[in-house]
C-alpha cells in the first residue's frame, strides 16, 4: 500500500508530512519520558525484523497465491502504539530511500496510512478492547484479523482520499474506492492471519512479550490533546499550503493580468521581429505544423499544455537528448581528468 510520490500534489504531501510529524513528535516525547530504556534497542531490532519478515512469502491455503506480513499491527502488539509507530516510521524511511517503495514527499502519507491508523486508531479501538479481558489464543486470532482488516481498510481509503485530493489521476473517486477497498479486504484477511499465527506462537513461547505487559507506555500525554492540536495544525497548514498551491502557478498569470492588463505578454516592436526572423532562419523545421481540425481550438490548447504539439514534441525530445549529452560530456570529462 506504499503511496508513490507521483500520485500526490505538494500540498497534500505537505499536509500529511505535518500530520505525521505531529504524531512522531508526540511519540518521541512519550518515549523520552518512558523509563524503559531497553525499548529503543528493541525497536531497532524489531524494525529490522519486520523488514526481513516482509520478504517471506506465506502460501494461502486453497489458492496458488501467497501473502506477506504487514508489520504495523504486529509492532504495535509487541511494542505498544508509540514504539510500534516509530519503528514502522524507520522501516518506511529505509524502504523509501533504498528501494523506492513509497516516495519522500509521500512519506507523510505512508506514515499516516500505515502507521497512524494502525497505532493510534485501530490499536486502542479494536486490539486493546479485545485484549481487555486478558490475552488468549482465540482473542489474538480475532484481534489480529479484525485489527489488520480495519487498519488496511482505513489506510486504503486514505490512499484514495489523498490521490483524489491531489488530482493527479483521472480515476473517479467511486471507481478508485471500488478498486482499492475489496483488494485490501482480501490482503487484510491474509495479513491478519499471518500476524495472528506469529503472535500466537510468540504468546505461547514467551507470553510476557505481548504488549499489554508493557502497559506503562499508555500513560503520559493525552492523545485527545494531541488530536486537537493536530486537527488545528491540519486546518492551518492545509489552508496555507492549498492557498500557495492554487495561487502560485496561476498567480503568475494573475499578477501579469494586474500589471499588463493581459495574462500573457504580447510581443511587439523591432527587437521582437528581428529575433522572429532569426528564429525563422535557424529553425530546422520551419513552419512545420499539423493542420488543426475545425473547431478544435480547445483541444489544441490542451495538446499544447500537455506538450503534444509538434514544437512541444520536438522540444521535449531535444531536451532529453541535451540532458543526456550534458551527462555524457561530464562523465567523459571526469574520466579524462581522473586518468590525467
Amino acid at each position: 500500500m506504499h503511496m508513490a510520490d507521483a500520485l500526490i500534489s505538494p500540498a497534500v504531501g505537505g499536509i500529511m508530512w505535518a500530520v505525521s510529524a505531529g504524531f512522531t513528535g508526540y511519540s518521541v516525547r512519550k518515549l523520552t519520558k518512558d523509563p524503559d530504556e531497553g525499548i529503543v534497542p528493541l525497536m531497532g531490532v524489531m524494525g529490522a525484523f519486520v523488514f526481513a519478515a516482509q520478504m517471506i512469502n506465506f502460501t494461502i491455503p486453497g489458492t496458488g497465491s501467497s501473502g506477506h506480513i504487514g508489520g504495523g499491527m504486529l509492532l504495535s502488539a509487541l511494542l505498544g502504539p508509540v514504539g510500534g509507530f516509530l519503528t514502522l516510521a524507520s522501516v518506511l524511511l529505509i524502504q523509501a530511500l533504498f528501494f523506492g517503495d513509497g516516495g519522500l514527499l509521500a512519506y507523510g502519507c505512508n506514515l499516516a496510512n500505515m502507521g497512524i491508523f494502525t497505532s493510534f486508531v485501530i490499536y486502542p479501538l479494536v486490539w486493546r478492547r479485545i485484549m481487555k479481558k486478558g490475552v488468549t489464543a482465540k482473542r489474538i486470532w480475532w484481534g489480529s484479523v479484525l485489527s489488520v482488516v480495519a487498519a488496511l481498510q482505513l489506510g486504503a481509503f486514505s490512499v484514495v482520499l489523498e490521490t483524489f485530493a491531489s488530482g493527479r489521476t483521472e480515476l473517479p473517486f467511486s471507481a478508485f474506492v471500488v478498486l482499492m477497498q475489496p483488494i485490501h479486504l482480501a490482503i487484510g484477511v491474509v495479513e491478519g492471519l499471518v500476524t495472528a499465527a506469529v503472535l500466537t506462537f510468540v504468546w505461547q513461547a514467551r507470553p510476557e512479550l505481548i504488549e499489554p505487559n508493557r502497559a506503562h507506555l499508555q500513560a503520559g500525554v493525552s492523545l485527545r490533546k494531541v488530536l486537537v492540536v493536530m486537527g488545528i495544525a491540519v486546518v492551518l497548514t492545509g489552508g496555507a499550503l492549498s492557498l500557495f498551491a492554487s495561487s502560485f502557478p496561476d498567480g503568475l498569470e494573475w499578477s501579469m493580468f494586474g500589471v499588463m492588463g493581459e495574462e500573457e505578454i504580447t510581443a511587439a516592436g523591432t527587437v521582437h521581429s528581428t529575433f522572429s526572423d532569426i528564429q525563422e532562419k535557424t529553425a530546422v523545421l520551419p513552419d512545420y505544423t499539423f493542420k488543426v481540425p475545425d473547431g478544435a481550438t480547445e483541444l489544441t490548447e490542451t495538446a499544447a499544455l500537455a506538450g503534444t504539439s509538434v514544437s512541444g514534441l520536438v522540444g521535449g525530445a531535444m531536451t532529453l537528448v541535451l540532458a543526456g549529452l550534458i551527462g555524457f560530456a561530464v562523465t567523459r570529462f571526469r574520466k579524462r581528468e581522473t586518468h590525467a
Partner: protein
Amino acid sequence: MPDVSSAVRDMHRMEALARSNTGVHRLHPVTKLLTVLMFLIAALSFERHAFGRLLPLFLFPVLTAALADLPWKPFLKRLLFVEPFVIGIGILNPLFDQVPVPFAGFEAARGWFTFLSLFLKTTLTVLAALQLIACTGMERLLAGLHAMGLPRVLVLQVSLTYRYLTVLAEEAGRLLTAYSLRAPGQKGIRFSAWGSLAGMLLLRSFDRAQRIHHAMQLRGYDGHVPLPPGTMPGMADAVWFFGWSCWFALVRFVDLPLWLGRLMTGG
C-alpha cells in the same frame, strides 16, 4: 518487496556507492536532501496532463549520476520493481478520460497523457530518492538530520534498524533456505508453519535485541548515544542548492521544451 538476497545485495551496493569521494558526495547531507525536496516539489507541482514540461527535470538525475560517478543499471533495475504499481493505476486513466487530443498527426485519449505524466513523475522521483542515498549514505544523512534538529531517539531508531537490517535479512534468508531444503518445490511457507517460522525469527530477534541492549549498557549506554558532530555547509553547498533551485524554478515557470521546439521548427 524484493527477495531477501537481492535486497541485501542492493543495500550493500548503495553503501558501497556512498563511500565514493566525489564533489557531490562531499556536499552536506542536508543540502542534498533539501535540493531533492525542491526537485520533488517542482516535479509534482505539474498538473496531471503535463509530460513534455517534465523532461528538462531529467537534467538533475543525469548530472547527479555523472558528477557522483553513479551507475545507471541498479537504479533502472529498481525502477522496474516500483513502476508496476503506478502503471497499474495509470493505465486506467485512458479509460476514464477519453477526450481526444491531437498527437503527432493523430488523436489520442487525454488519459494517455495523464498516464505518461505519472510514469515520468515516478521515474524522476524514485531516481532522486535512490541517488540521494547512493551519494550520501545512511549514517551521514542521519547525522546531518540530527544536526538540523531531528530528535536523537529517532536518529537512534533509524540507525539501529538500518544496522541490523542486513543481519536479520540474512538470518531470514538462512531460515528460508533451510525450509526450502526440507520442502522442495514449495513456493511459500505452508499454513502450518506460518507462526513457527516467522515466530522463531521474531524470538531470535528479541533475544538479539536484549543482547545488544546489555552490551550497550556495559559500554555505558544510559539512553543517550553520542552521534558524530555535524559539519557546516560551505560555498559548494550554496552553489548546488541555489543553482538547482533556479533550474527547477525555470523549468516550472517556463515551457522550455516548447520554446526549444519553436526555435527549431519556427512553429
